[in-house]
């Protein structure tokens, strides 16, 4: 039983290591219901790690239909979201809790 738990934990951590290993990382901050930067440029055809830090006290939901990503980020918390590989183009994202102000775009360039 202990062996099963150990090997499951090992496999899980192994996959986490794969997931988190050596991936270009970009940071987006949320301040006053705005994204900083509101336009982010990332390389094409590459898996990218986005770190979204919510500097507001209230929660926000990072969402993008084009990127197919959706995550609630509590006040003061940060979230890790993987995107890509993506073909070149513009991929808008928004804060679902404050959609009028929290808007941004991820530009994928070669």
């Amino acid at each position, binding site marked *: 039983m202990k062996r099963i738990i150990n090997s499951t934990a090992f496999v899980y951590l192994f996959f986490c290591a794969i997931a988190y290993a050596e991936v270009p990382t970009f940071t987006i901050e949320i301040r006053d219901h705005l994204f900083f930067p509101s336009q982010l440029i990332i390389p094409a055809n590459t898996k990218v790690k986005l770190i979204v830090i919510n500097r507001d006290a*209230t929660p926000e939901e990072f969402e993008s*239909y084009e990127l*197919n990503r*959706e995550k609630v980020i509590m006040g003061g918390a940060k979230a*890790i979201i*993987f995107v890509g*590989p993506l073909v070149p183009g513009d991929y808008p994202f928004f804060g679902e809790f404050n959609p009028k102000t929290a808007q941004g775009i991820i530009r994928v360039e070669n």
Partner: protein
Amino acid sequence: MVDAVLLVLREVLEAALIMSLLLALSHKLQLRFRWSLSALFLGLMGSWILAQYTYEITDAMDGTGQELLNAVLYFSVVLSVVVLSVLILPLAFAPPLATHRRTPDSPESGSRHKLIYGLFIIIVSFSVAREGSEIWIYLSGFTNQSDMISSVYIGAAIGAGIGVSLGAITYYAFAFMHKKYFVPVFLLVITLLAGGLSMQIAKQFLQIGLLNSTAPLWDSSFLVNEHSWLGELLYALLGYDARPAPIQGVFYLLTVSPILLAWVWHTWRLRANTHE
């Protein structure tokens, strides 16, 4: 206020559609509807608890807690829907529902009914918990803004009202369906719904990098844009995605196959029996 209406509407709609479909099935199978009260109560309690522990959930498992929990909730719903579909599928091949007499005295049907009630409760309560928690989190952000809070609450109430109304329309559309068509149409819709939810599971794993995405299978945004009202409705009902990743397609097929296989098996068995 419009933002609040739209957000709450989206969340409520997803849960309301599932609940309406199951209530209609419950009605057609001449089952009691009391399961829906337990399911709603459990779902609302669950959504509240999930919202209270969001910080802890988010930080769990190295920051992947939210996605993993969502995946577990979606998976439970998908599994329950698949089991339910396979259970009621024989009804599509049986004589019309009008002649299907409920036999409350037979213990076999009693335990089968208990299982169906259990599946109903899991499906509805987990869906309500998942969607509801997001609404509580959203509303919690406005507690310190006394100027906006009343318009947000009103907007939320309106959104919830619209969602429930659409659910009611769905219920009546299905409940008043002709007996001959009900089971096949219901099975079709619920299968597509389960497929859509399975794509959500894949999306959670893609988001935390446990799965890798490649180029999308297609881009149907020229047909139905995800931002349009039709796109949003199709998303709520079928999990419509204009750019599905290949792994999402795999999850979809894995979910839909058991039901398709059960259908094929029953058709084959019916043919075999009628040829004897």
